[in-house]
């Protein structure tokens, strides 16, 4: 299998199975996609369709004893599937950043944000503490966080969800990752914060050319951000197309169903037909 230099992440024939007491269950199967630098791939589907399992298997975060991952996951020409935990730790955070759904749970409550930020930077680079702090402040400024020097001394519970999510994006961006996996980055946030967070995510993308795998069940997020969209159902990708093509002429029945199921506003038309 030849690897294309222009593809930063290539997932081929991904199968994930879980071994349970009553036999083997397939969680996701036949997942194929690739990411070019600076591209955003939206992954949509209902809850429980395997979106998160896909992202976890890319990061090799699934329990290795209970799950088997087949297929190939190529990051810049390096095979990730089956890589030793020690090697994987060097990749997570540095080459692949992960932005989780709930920022409140993603941080340790017992350390300050600065501690966690600097720890992340120092474990991947040879910067000393002072340089790391400077880098942290610099990347926090990028996401419009006010007074970053003071924020670093705060504990996670002292910040609001929207702010924490921006800190998480700052951490993810500070090491200029090749790929960012954003797993429902706005679901836990207030509507007013959602656009802000997405805007910063896009800024990181355009500045460092990171490719983003954007996982969401919200079609609004996908239509705002994605270049390409993959629709998942029951652990399979049922349709993959450019975002305009998918919204204009969906092919698969399930995609049509999804598009019809979103709450619509019809901003241009009079609201009378809504009731």
């Amino acid at each position: 299998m030849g690897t294309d230099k222009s593809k930063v992440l290539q997932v081929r024939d991904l199968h994930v199975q879980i071994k349970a007491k009553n036999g083997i269950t397939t969680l996701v199967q036949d997942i194929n996609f690739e990411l070019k630098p600076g591209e955003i791939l939206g992954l949509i589907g209902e809850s429980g369709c395997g979106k998160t399992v896909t992202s976890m298997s890319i990061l090799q975060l699934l329990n290795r004893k209970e799950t088997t991952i087949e297929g190939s996951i190529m990051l810049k020409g390096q095979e990730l599937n089956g890589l030793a935990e020690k090697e994987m730790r060097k990749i997570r955070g540095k080459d692949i950043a992960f932005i989780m759904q709930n920022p409140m749970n993603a941080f340790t409550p017992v350390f300050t944000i600065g501690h966690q930020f600097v720890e992340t930077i120092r474990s991947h680079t040879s910067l000393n503490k002072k340089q790391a702090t400077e880098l942290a402040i610099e990347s926090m400024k990028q996401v419009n966080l006010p007074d970053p020097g003071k924020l670093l001394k705060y504990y996670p519970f002292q910040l609001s969800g929207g702010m924490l999510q921006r800190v998480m994006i700052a951490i993810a961006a500070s090491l200029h990752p090749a790929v960012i996996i954003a797993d429902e980055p706005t679901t836990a946030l207030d509507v007013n914060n959602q656009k802000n967070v997405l805007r910063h995510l896009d800024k990181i993308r355009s500045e460092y050319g990171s490719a983003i795998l954007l996982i969401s069940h919200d079609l609004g997020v996908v239509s705002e951000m994605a270049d390409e969209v993959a629709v998942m159902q029951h652990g399979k990708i049922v349709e993959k197309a450019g975002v305009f093509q998918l919204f204009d002429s969906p092919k698969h029945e399930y995609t049509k169903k999804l598009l019809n199921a979103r709450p619509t506003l019809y901003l241009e038309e009079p609201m009378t037909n809504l009731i």
Partner: protein
Amino acid sequence: MSLLQVNEVTHSYGNRTFFKWQNRSKKVLSDISFSIEEGTCLGMLGTSGAGKSTLGKVILGLEKPKHGQILFQGHDIYTVDKYTRQKIRRDLQVVFQDSYSAVNPRMTAERIIAEPLENYEKLTLAEQKRTVIELLEKVGLGEKDLKKYPHQFSGGQLQRINIARAVSLKPKLIVLDESVSSLDMVTQTLILELLRELKEDFGLSYFFITHDIKAACMISDTLGVLEKGELIEHYNSKNEFFSSENPVVKEMRGSILAEHPRFRSIRTKSNYI
């Protein structure tokens, strides 16, 4: 007479010491007045911390406001006698956001839905079971779900059970406090459609608390906007909301995500590197 009338309600949370009210209390609702007519839905929009949920609690009779009164069918719910209040309880139901924490994990779906029936209706066991099955079918579940426990349902299904429990006594008003916010988009739309159907069938009224403008527009007849404890706008139709010039409302409208990539505002051009 309106079904529910809220008159100049003011409420604050404060820390009380043994001897005096400290003057550090934080005002969460100030001077709020509105009414809900029978068979209509009022959508209450607001950012987090605007006082939406407190207003919901005040209406339900769970949080006595510092000033003002809540008139439900003409009765002030905080001063009526016990007997009338019990009757009001029956007509005033609630569905919360977190479906799992709103049910007893040790009860089956049948018992969860039957609980209000046991309290208010004198039904034989067979009749009760029939009513429960009817309710389950109404919300899109079936007889097979009777003996299941909460952990065996998905979030959307459990929210349906919560709704079934709320409508079991054919109430007049249901307070929906972020009832669809934690569900995924498809489930959200299905639940909203179910609520709309139930509204027609039973002539229900809703007080729909949400921060999701799209959801509010799908179900509401009138809309209110709360900001820092004040009811800054009250619209009789959705059109008024979309043509309002109020800066807060404008900002809210600006936060709606595009429905189609044509209208996207974050990534205006696809700039590959």
